[in-house]
Structures are given as C-alpha cells and as structure tokens.
C-alpha cells in the first residue's frame, strides 16, 4: 500500500518540477513552488523521513515563496525609481 502512495507522490513530484520550470512568470512561480514544496514534504514523509519532511515543508512552502516575493517587490521598486529618474531627466 505504501508503495503505491510513494509511486503516486513520485509521479506528482515529477509533474510538479516540470510545472515549476514551465511557469515563466516569477509571481506565479512562487505559488507553484509552494505546492511543489508541499508535495516534496509528503514524499519525504512516505520515505519514513519526518525530520527532512519538516524542514522541506517549512522551507519549500513558506520561506522560498516569501523570498521570491520579496525579491520581486524589490525589483519592482527599482523599476519605479528608474522610471521616475528617467522621467525627470529632460
């Protein structure tokens, strides 16, 4: 029984990895990465590795999407500053 769950989760992880790569927009990618982290944590849980599942869950589903969003916010702030500087030049 556990073997089927593991095989199913492995297939889902493979699809999730493909989904993360194929999502080109970083904003949407943050959400897909969060789901991917959750799938990875479930997979590690079925591999009888609760320690790794805990850390994969917190990192993959919370910290990593957060850092993507923060980087995007900072990039957007730079764009605004740059546009404003260009408008003020002439």
């Amino acid at each position, binding site marked *: 029984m556990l073997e089927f769950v593991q095989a199913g989760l492995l297939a889902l992880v493979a699809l999730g990895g493909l989904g993360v790569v194929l999502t080109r927009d970083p904003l949407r990618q943050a959400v897909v990465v969060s789901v991917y982290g959750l799938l990875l944590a479930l997979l590690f849980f079925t591999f009888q590795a609760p*320690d790794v599942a*805990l850390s994969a869950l917190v990192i993959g589903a*919370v*910290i990593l999407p*957060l*850092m993507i969003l*923060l*980087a995007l916010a900072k990039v957007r702030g730079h764009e605004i*500053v740059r546009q404003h500087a260009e408008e003020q030049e002439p």
Partner: protein
Amino acid sequence: MSVPARRLVFLVAAAGFAALFLWGLAGLPSFGNYQGPYGDILNRVAVPQRHVTDVVAAVNFDYRGVDTIGEEFILFVSVAGVAALLRTERAEIDVEPPEDERAIRRAETSDAVRAFCFALIAPTIVLGWDIVAHGHLTPGGGFQGGAILASGLVLIYLAGGYKTLRAVSPEEGADVAEAIGAGGFVVIGLAGLIAGAAFLQDIIPLGPVGLLYSAGTIPLINLSVGIEVAGGFLVILSEFLRQALQVRAQADARKDQEQA
C-alpha cells in the same frame, strides 16, 4: 551561438548525461534494499551511547558534528553575502516615486489577513521553540525549529507592518543573535577541547533517555542552531524589506510637510 542552436546542444548533452546518470544509478541497490552497514550500526548504537531517541539529531550534532558546523557556516556566510549585497543601498538616493505608484505601494493589508496572522504569531513561535527544544527526542531540531521561528517573524511583519517588525527585532539585534548562534556551536565544541576531550565531544553528563535534559550537549547545540537559523532568516528578511520603508518614510514626511 543563437538560442535554438544552444537549445539543441543542450538537448544532445542532456540526453548523454541522462544516459550516463541512469546507467550509474542502475548500479545502486534497488529501492528499498538498504544494505550499508553504517545506518544499522548507528541505529543500534546511538540510543545507548548518546541517550537520544532521535538518531538523526545524534548523527547531525555528534557523529557528523563537524559537517554540521560547516553547513551552519555556509548559512552564515550566505546571510553575510545577502547583507553585503543589499546594504550598499543605504547610501543611495531616495527618489520619490510618483503619486499613483505611491498609492499602490501603500496598499493596506486587509484586516482579515492582519487578524489571522496576529492570531497565529504566538502558536507559531511556541511551536518553533518546542521543536527546537525537543530535537533530540522527536523529529525536529535546530534547523527545522529555526525555520519555523523565522516564519513566526514573517507573521509579525504581515500582521503589523515593517515598523512593528523593527520594534520587535532591531537590526543590530538580529545580527547579534545570528552571530551568537553561529559562535555558540563552535564554543560548545571548544568547551570539549578545553575540558580535555576531543572537539565537540560530549562533556556534560547524559541524563536518562527520553527526558528533556538528556543527551548532554545536543540540546544546547540545537538551541544555538535554532537561534542562528532564525536570526539568519530575520537578517535576510530585513535586508529585502528595508527599501520599502525608506521610500515610504520619505513619502510620509513629504505628505506631512504638504499638509502643514
């Protein structure tokens, strides 16, 4: 080389790499037939030797403790790198964004989000410290608990805004906490050297198995690693968030002047 040509080269190389990789992986024992001796030896020996019930924690902080010091310092150096890269912006000009952009950037968080996050702060922080403290007994430890504490700090930011986060954890405090955590691990190891044993050898009496104060130095190391990981993520969070505050403070000051 044009992009499609590069893609073609990559596909050929990836096919070759995948073939070699799978051929190499086929030499591994099949999934589910773990054969190596070390796992079995450790599972049998760790509980009587170290009085832990979580063997993974014993491996991380005792049997392979020097590896973990190395990993912890990779973390420390990465956080220092983020700070070095993003702190140079402090001297930069604070150009005022135009009015409509300012309105977008000052979009208020909805009350539902703030109330929900506020309600979750205390359980998250308690859970984080619980996982750090019980790392040698149940699955958990410094790394996982530190990451959960970091998410607790993120919840503080979500519920209260950047000023609340700064009030709770001043910037210098985050730096100091991270450094204490990183140094604490090494100090515990050096304490072993000073007491006449090997580096990172356990010198505190081991308590009975299964109680919170068992396992000698492992709970202390868990604590210092938890502080370090939480402090590290807090520094990273602060570095990424700082510019938002600068622009907003200038906008508020300008607006106060206009209203006065």
